[in-house]
Each structure stands twice: as structure tokens, then as C-alpha cells.
């Protein structure tokens, strides 16, 4: 199942440690370039899969895994470097833990997998998280080029939208559980 979209997704997963190492080595220009490239492949793999009708089950799992891995790894890194407020990381991490735990719970309770469909809030939250991370990496590369205040504001909004999306997913999961026979 290693078609082009899945290969791009795997490359995105491989980019996660590469970005973290680049930050540690002070190569923030490279980290930013890799992050932007990862963002481009995120759009590309889905588009190619749809256009070439090569959507696969593996891709459906790998794509969100790559997104979450990239966002959470960078959020933790930027929080440790003082660019992201701790409460933002807490909200985003909690939302993801609740969603993953909820998905697993529903699967183990019913033996069926709930269909993962991102909501508008979920998509907006991901966009804002990626925007904030992009700003954070840019300000590391060019410290005086972008003040931290707008970056922190984007993260604050992202955290609120993420929490709203989380509540939406939990409600959706509960509804699904009530309607699905065990």
C-alpha cells in the first residue's frame, strides 16, 4: 500500500525528528523549511489520493497520525522553549488524549470503529495550531522579525477552538455509542 500519497505521509512522519533535531542544532531556518514542506505534503497527499482514486485504509490512519505527531511534538518543544504558554499545550494535549482514549474505548466496548470525520471546528483548530507553530518557528529563525504576542494570541484562539472541537467530538461519540448496539 505504499502508493504516492502514503509515501508522502511517511515522509511527513520522518520530518518530525528531523525538525526537532534542526531546532536543537540551532538550524531554525532548516526547521522552518521542513515544517513548511511537511505542510505542503499534508495538502498534497490528500489531493493526490482523491485525484488518483488511491485512497487507502492505511492512509486514513497514517495521515492524522502524522498531523498529530507533528503538531504535538512541536508544541511540546516550543512550550519548553517558552514560546507557547503551558495552558495551551495542556488544552490541546488533553483534547487529543480524550479523543484517542474515547475512540479506543468505543472500539473496545462495541467492537466497531467509529468513523473519523473532522468537524469544522476541528479543521479550524488544526489550521490555527499549524499557523501558530509556523509563526513560532519563524520567530526562532528571525527573533526580531515577529513579536511573540500575535503568535501567543493565535495559540490562545487555537486552544479555545480545540477545546470546542473536543467537546463536539465527545458529544458525537456519546451519540454514536447510544445508537450502536454492543
Amino acid at each position, binding site marked *: 500500500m505504499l502508493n504516492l500519497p502514503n509515501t508522502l505521509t511517511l515522509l511527513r512522519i520522518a520530518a518530525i525528528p528531523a525538525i526537532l533535531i534542526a*531546532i536543537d542544532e540551532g538550524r531554525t531556518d532548516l526547521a522552518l523549511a521542513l515544517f513548511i514542506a511537511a505542510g505542503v505534503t499534508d495538502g498534497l497527499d490528500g489531493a493526490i489520493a482523491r485525484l488518483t482514486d488511491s485512497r487507502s485504509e492505511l492512509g486514513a490512519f497514517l495521515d492524522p497520525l502524522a498531523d498529530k505527531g507533528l503538531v504535538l511534538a512541536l508544541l511540546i518543544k516550543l512550550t519548553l522553549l517558552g514560546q507557547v504558554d503551558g495552558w495551551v499545550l495542556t488544552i490541546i494535549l488533553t483534547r487529543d488524549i480524550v479523543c484517542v482514549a474515547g475512540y*479506543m474505548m468505543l472500539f473496545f466496548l462495541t467492537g466497531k470503529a467509529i468513523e473519523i470525520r473532522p468537524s469544522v471546528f476541528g479543521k479550524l483548530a488544526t489550521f490555527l495550531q499549524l499557523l501558530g507553530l509556523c509563526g513560532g518557528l519563524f520567530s526562532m529563525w528571525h*527573533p526580531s522579525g515577529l513579536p511573540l504576542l500575535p503568535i501567543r494570541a493565535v495559540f490562545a484562539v487555537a486552544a479555545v477552538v480545540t477545546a470546542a472541537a473536543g467537546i463536539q467530538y465527545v458529544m458525537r461519540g456519546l451519540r454514536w455509542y447510544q445508537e450502536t448496539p454492543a
Partner: protein
Amino acid sequence: MTRRCPVRRFRRGLACAMAALGLLLSRADGASADTGSDALAETRRLDAGPRRWTSRRQQLNLSTKDSRGARRERELVILARKEGEDERTLTVFLSPPEVRGTAFLQISHADRETEQWIFLPALGRVRRITSRARDQSFVGTAFSYRDLELLTDAVELSEEQAPSRLLEDAGDAPGKDGRIRVERRSGERELGYDKLVVDLETPAYVVRELRFVGADGAGEKRLVLDDIRQIGAIPTPHRLVMNDAAKGAETTVVVTKVVFGDEMPDDLFTEQGLEDALDLIEN
């Protein structure tokens, strides 16, 4: 039974996932400092990595109170540039008129003594600050030339140059503000003090205080770095207070503007460039 098994499996899976996440987060919190050397190395690692910068321009207001309580105000610009392992710092006084144009150049080398020169417009010539003259006051402030040298070197010096010892690891102690205290003494490099005590704030590993302790234990000078603001990933102190208890003098430095990454002409950071430093900075 059939209902409990999936729940058990889920609980086991969830516990494993949480343990893995906890381990990841605890490891991600930076290396814990078991020795003074570890703490300094972690600070150096961050400074050379995510907090790395190549050039920095700072505008400062400096206020000095002498032992009689008389206060003097100064306005100055500090330009700094990193060249490999060397750091060049140029300080130029903008006001008041009696010190305007005074320029001070410091070149910190990784492998040899720091070099310092000063240009005093009243004398019209550049003077090299020899190691014997390093204890003199820097333009009437509570800082000596040696203090300025150690401000850059406190963390940068290797263990061979200035062996370190962990005095107090207050990193995890509640109410202790997450500080690690490291003492440094002269090694291959003569510090000019009996010891230098460096307080690092954890987990960011930012220098928050330097204590310059004289040979007899008296004559301690204390520099507090405060109002730390994050610029990019670089924690930058915006208020520095140097207190010389023995002389009853105190100098407060307030940073009014910081810009990283500015282009700076090469001739600014030379001994020859000191005479024209004010013109070069203002144009």
C-alpha cells in the same frame, strides 16, 4: 465476562499510552543537572542551539548611584556579533554630552584571554584595557571591566578554564523559584575573584544572578538579571541591577529596545573603528 475483557484491554492500553506519554514529557523537560558542569553545559547547549543568535543590538538607559547617593544617567547602545566561537561587543555612549562618543570594544575568545579597548573622546585616543586595569570602574558605573568580561564568560568558560561546583539544586523545590546555583573558580583562566556564583533559572536555564565574591569573602558584588522577556526563543533580560556593597554603589541598566539579526558593518568591531563608532552607529 465478555463485557469485562474489552474494558480490561482498554484500561491496559490506556495505562501503557499514559505511561509512554509521561515518560516522553519527563524526558522532554531537558537534561536534569546533576553537577554544576551539567547545568552550565545545558545552558550552553540551548544558547548554541534553539536560542542561537548572530547579531544583537540593544538600546539601554543606565543609572548609577554612587556611595554619596548622587545619581548619573547614561544612554547607550550595545552591538554584539558572534563570529564562530568569538563574541564581539561594542558599547557606545550616546548621552550625556560629557560621555557621548565613548566607545568600548570587547572581544571574547573561546581559547584565550578576552581583549578590551576603550575610546575616550576627551583623550582622543584608544586605550587597551590590560589585565591589570580590569578592576577599574567602567565609565563610573558599579561594573568593572572584569565584570563585563565575566558577564559573557560566566557560562561560556569550559571546566578546565573555570571548574564548577553545584552549590544548590533548587530546581524542584517549591517556593525556591526553580534555581540552580553553580560556583566557578579560577582554573586555566584567572577570574579575578575568589569565586563567581551563577544562579540559573530552570527549566529554561537562564542566568538570573551573578555574584562576584572577593578573596576575603567580603567585597561581594551582585548582579541581578530581571524582567526576562522572550524574543523568539531567546529569553532576554530587560533590567540588570549591579550592586557593589563594599563601595555602596549601584548601577541599574534598563534595556529599552532589542533587535536580533541586524546587519552590522565589519569595521565597527575593530580597535580602529572605535573612534568613529558613534558616527557609524548614528548613520
